[in-house]
């Protein structure tokens, strides 16, 4: 899990000596964007005086003041709906739902207002809103505070979906998200907040949406993974390499838009595909990628496209049980072994 690879990127490796944490990278991206564009402001529960329950917005209130770093009541419909309204009034809101799970409490605002307002009104408006969504398991947060809901966002046209797995991507994608004219759901993984990695210092560093990263090159099997699962896939790949199975790990980085080209190109090379996600196995984004790959590269396949996903259960609270519910590096290795029999 700690074998975060130096990205051998398809879009340029991270060229930085500076090592920074994922959470710090997000904080830095927010500060830089607040400095760059006065239309940018932040809103959410406990993001100001406390600096966020996960500390992501620490120090921002001090620099940018209560006008631009706003603590709200517990009112997710306002946090998201108000952001939509503020965008209509000319602002660039970056709001935080304390847990990604709360997108269900603001579902009307996210899936109807953010996703459809522009369309329903004939393209007269743009809604440059970023909704930050602390996502995934973090060790004991329970069934309503630990989910990975990115696939649900993929299913509603009008929303862009980012799923950073490294500190550099967290920063670069968030900055792209703020600058994007469309609403972006930014699924930052709570379990990665403390992971460190190289992050460029330049305020001009951005990671474009829709470009996958090759987290580990390989020849025998392509594994597509996001978020926390990227590190586990890379760890599994190192173990499989010792057995002669050379795995290529691809992190799409954004699910909308999805860089299916890079995935297909990899499958054309390896002839085998496995998708790993923390979200429940059924109808996760793995299903979508599997479908798209067989639609586009059916005759490149040597074996069924395989999915390794979280169990189809609500996430249990106890941290040990919780880990049993999501894919481990062991699970990925097991699945790869099983698949090698084909």
């Amino acid at each position, binding site marked *: 899990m700690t074998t975060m690879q130096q990205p051998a990127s398809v879009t340029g490796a991270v060229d930085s000596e500076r090592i920074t944490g994922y959470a710090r990278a997000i904080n830095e991206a927010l500060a830089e964007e607040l400095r760059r564009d006065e239309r940018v*402001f932040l809103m959410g529960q406990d993001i100001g005086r406390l600096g966020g329950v996960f500390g992501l917005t620490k120090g921002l209130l001090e620099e940018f003041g209560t*006008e*631009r770093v*706003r603590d*709200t*009541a517990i*009112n*997710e*419909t*306002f946090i*998201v*709906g*108000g*952001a*939509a*309204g*503020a*965008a*209509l*009034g*000319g*602002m660039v*809101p970056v709001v935080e739902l304390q847990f990604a799970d709360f997108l269900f409490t603001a579902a*009307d*605002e996210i899936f*109807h*207002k953010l996703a459809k*307002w*522009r*369309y*329903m*009104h*004939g*393209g*007269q*408006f*743009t*809604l*440059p809103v970023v909704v930050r969504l602390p996502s995934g398991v973090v060790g004991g947060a329970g069934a309503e505070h630990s989910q990975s809901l990115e696939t649900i966002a993929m299913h509603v*046209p*009008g929303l862009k979906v980012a799923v950073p797995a490294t500190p550099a991507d967290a920063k670069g994608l968030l900055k792209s998200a703020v600058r994007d*004219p*469309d609403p972006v759901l930014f699924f930052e993984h709570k379990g990665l907040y403390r992971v460190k990695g190289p992050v460029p210092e330049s305020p001009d560093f951005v990671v474009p949406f829709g470009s996958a990263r090759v987290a580990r090159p390989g020849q025998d099997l392509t594994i597509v993974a996001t978020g926390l699962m990227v590190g586990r896939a890379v760890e599994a790949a190192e173990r499989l390499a010792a057995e002669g199975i050379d795995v290529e790990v691809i992190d799409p980085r954004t699910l909308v838009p999805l860089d299916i080209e890079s995935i297909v190109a990899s499958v054309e090379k390896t002839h085998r595909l496995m998708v790993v996600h923390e979200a429940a196995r059924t109808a996760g984004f793995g299903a979508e990628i599997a479908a798209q790959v067989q639609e586009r590269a059916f005759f490149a396949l040597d074996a069924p496209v395989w999915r390794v996903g979280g169990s189809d259960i609500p996430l249990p609270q106890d941290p040990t049980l919780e880990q049993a519910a999501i894919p481990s590096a062991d699970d990925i290795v097991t699945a790869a072994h099983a698949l090698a029999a084909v």
Partner: protein
Amino acid sequence: MEIYRKVVTVRFAELRIRDHVETEGFGGFWHPGIGQEGLQVGAIAAMRPEDYLYYAHRGLGYAYAKGMDMVPLFGDLLGRAVGSTRGKGGGTVHFASAEHGVLGQGGTLGSNFVLGAGTALASQLRGDGRVTVVFFGDGASGRGTWHEAALQASVWKLPVVWVCENNGWALSARFEDQSPTPHVADRASAYGMPGVIVDGQDALAVRDATADAIERARRGEGPTLIEAKTLRIRGHYEGDRQPYREDQVKDDEIPNDPVHRLGALIPDEQRRTIDGDARRYVEEAFAAALAAPRPDTSVIYEDVWA
């Protein structure tokens, strides 16, 4: 006189649309606003052109009053390329004009509360001096979004005015069956804002009450809740036979008709001229919209992304 002209224009438009729906049919739901034109036009008359409007779903009087032409409004209704949404928001719900500060409407009732508060927040942050007026019905006041938006708007003293059109009916639900207090305005005190009750059939009274609230908001003193008491003349949508309703208003009898009340203030001859012009304008606009081409189906792939 300008208020009268707009109110009577909206009335003719309401009648023209009803005529069309009854004779030609219509691919959607028309939520008639007949009888409520007075308060809609009256309230909006208190707004500046640059102020922001979130309207409710009952009629198209709001948008016309805010400065939009009738052609794009009819165009939306008729699914024509000249409609402001080119068939994608359509019907009577989602017309919009960025130019006129008509910011649109959500299809889930009561979703405008939080958007309105957010737009008012933008004005506060930008210091642009604009006020956002949000219309809603008594039915939508039951939404949780009302609470979340009203609370935050008051806490932050956002420049927003809440205008409740209480016509006594939320589709089939009687207001008195769904409210523990006799008035929506009674709830204002919980949010630390003034609650004002006004006769919704009296356009000028609504205008004055709204003007006060807008001024207050512009001064930075925060939101006001205005409750305009009115009547729902027709069903929830045109074609709704209202089996749940014993007090059905006969079509031609609009009690306390705002058109008549305003008209009484104007000399007959002048009023007849205004009426004639308004009728002609509505007929021409409707004919122009009807004659306009339907949008190419390719528009369905546009405007998903910026």
